[in-house]
């Protein structure tokens, strides 16, 4: 009788795991397709910002933006006046939920737009959090015209990385 229980339990468990595995393989395929698409898009928009060039090291969420901040704007000179218009990409900040990088659009010394080039996308939950937090952060930043804004509750890691990358872009734009 014990044998019967052991064999049935083993078979049932194996079956359940197999079903899980099968449906998981499907999810993994669609996931990787989505990742490829988004990579293409971000490559298309950010010519200058080397993907993954700005790997960050050190504590997470802190304001250290040691990554390279490259300007894709028209003004080439580093010491140019901050009034220069153009787009500036921030550093790539690594978090446990994926990399974050933002790009700002500057016109007449003001931040007119913030675009997220990469957002935490490690898993569905992170994507969900990012999609909620990014528009809020964008609005806050445009209103405050700086990286000194409140982090979004429930999206602390994403917010910190977002603002950290933003600071890099602001530095690059000399704002």
């Amino acid at each position, binding site marked *: *009788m014990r044998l019967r*229980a052991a064999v049935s339990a083993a078979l049932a468990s194996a079956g359940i795991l197999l079903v899980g*595995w099968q449906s998981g*393989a499907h999810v993994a395929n669609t996931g990787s397709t989505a990742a490829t698409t988004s990579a293409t898009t971000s490559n298309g928009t950010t010519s200058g910002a080397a993907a993954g060039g700005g790997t960050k090291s050190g504590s*997470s969420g802190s304001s250290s933006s040691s990554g390279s901040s490259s300007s894709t704007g028209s003004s080439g000179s580093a010491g140019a006046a901050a009034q220069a218009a153009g787009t500036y990409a921030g550093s790539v900040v*690594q*978090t446990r939920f994926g990399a974050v990088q933002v790009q700002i659009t500057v016109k007449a010394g003001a931040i007119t737009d913030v675009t997220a080039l990469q957002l935490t996308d490690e898993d569905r939950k992170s994507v*969900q959090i990012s999609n909620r937090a990014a528009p809020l952060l964008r609005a806050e930043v445009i209103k405050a015209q700086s990286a000194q804004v409140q982090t979004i509750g*429930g999206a602390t890691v994403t917010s910190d990385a977002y603002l950290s990358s933003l600071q890099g872009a602001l530095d690059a734009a000399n704002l």
Partner: protein
Amino acid sequence: MNSSLQMVVPGAARSTPVERFRGQARSRLFRADLLTVLAWSSVAAAIALWLADGGATGFSTLAGSFTALGIVAGLAGMDLVLLMLLLVARLPLIDGAVGHDRALEFHRKLGKPSLYLLLAHGILIAAGYGMAEGLDPVSELVSLWVLVPDMWLAIVSIGLFIAVVVTSLVAVRRRFPYEFWYAVHLLTYAAVLTAIPHQFSTGALFAEGTWQRWYWIAICIATGAALAHYRVLEPIVATVRHQLKVSRVVTEAPGVVSIELTGRHLDELAGNGGRFFIWRFLSPGAWWHPHPFSLSAEPVLFDSSGRGRLRITVRNLGRGSAQLARLKSGTSVAIEGPYGLFSTAARSRDQVVMIGAGIGITPIRALLERTPFEPGNATVILRGHSEAELYLGAEILELCRRRGATLFHLTGPRTTGKQGWMPESAVRSGHRLASYAPHVAGADVYICGPTVWARSVISEARSAGVREEQLHNERFDW
């Protein structure tokens, strides 16, 4: 003479054409096997939830592999914790299939594995996340505590789980009073409750809108509801319904008393079900102390309304039991139960052998009263140091005489070794279990007594050809 043959009913045992208990045993074993399959399947299902979410893709990087293994350990660990809670929830399905004591045994066996899984979960996740961010696992834990909502609760939870399991280890448990262990064990509920928030808020697998979230919510709620219903609500209902009150306390032998209780609707407690209850005597200073005892007699009904009498017989084992001898009549009694399988519900054969030692004789007394057998088909073996320790011996003799059961009194000092359950003189005479009960291989064997003694009887019964489904052992040492 230490081993004396008290009475024999001669005559060939009439064997019924169809053994009436075979079907009952088959059904019970099927339910036990089904529960085993369900338990293992639930662990597999927890991991399948993660596989179905594409979790296995995490293994593409080293950091991802650590995180993935951590998630699997957490899922399996939480599933085991829920199973442990269900095993102590006193579900009728579990109690009727394996019995209260076996359920507790499985509960204990799962304790360490689930703790190891939860510890592995914490360590692997900290390592995996840390690697992804370039942090060492300790700094990662600190950052999780500070930055990620609900994570500090999860870290507190693991500390509580460690405390609960460590205080339940046999070696540690012996050093502290039962009450201390019990109080710490109640922290399990805090440990589980503090572990739950991070599973839903941080665990991506259970993000809003996923079917996995619904499954996990369902099993958590079902477990909580089972506990609330069967451990809180049912006992209250039973207590209010039966209105048990102590009617008198009778001294059976030095340090042994029978407590008689009157109550209502006691007809519902007759039948084939368990005879084991947890009793709380509602007097000042004693009400909070739960006593696990089996009935030492079948419920006696005064009339058709269900009013009647219950009896338990207890030995002065500890501080709590000592108070029982001084119980006043009229004391109200709260009960949880009946539980257990030391009853007709466990029968699988027509013949029956009942073996009791010390205070373990008293549940045998209740079983002997009504479990069905033809005259000559039952053997009762009582073991004690002296005749005076064969509690309720006179009642048992009378029942054996009336029902046609063979009774043996085995008295005398114990021996060591394989036949340790018999007195020394019986071992020297070359007696075995089959000497007393020649039909033991084809009988149900009920065993109740101290753990070491019972183990010796069980091993002897097995070597006499008794199969697992025929062995019924009630442990009362916890």
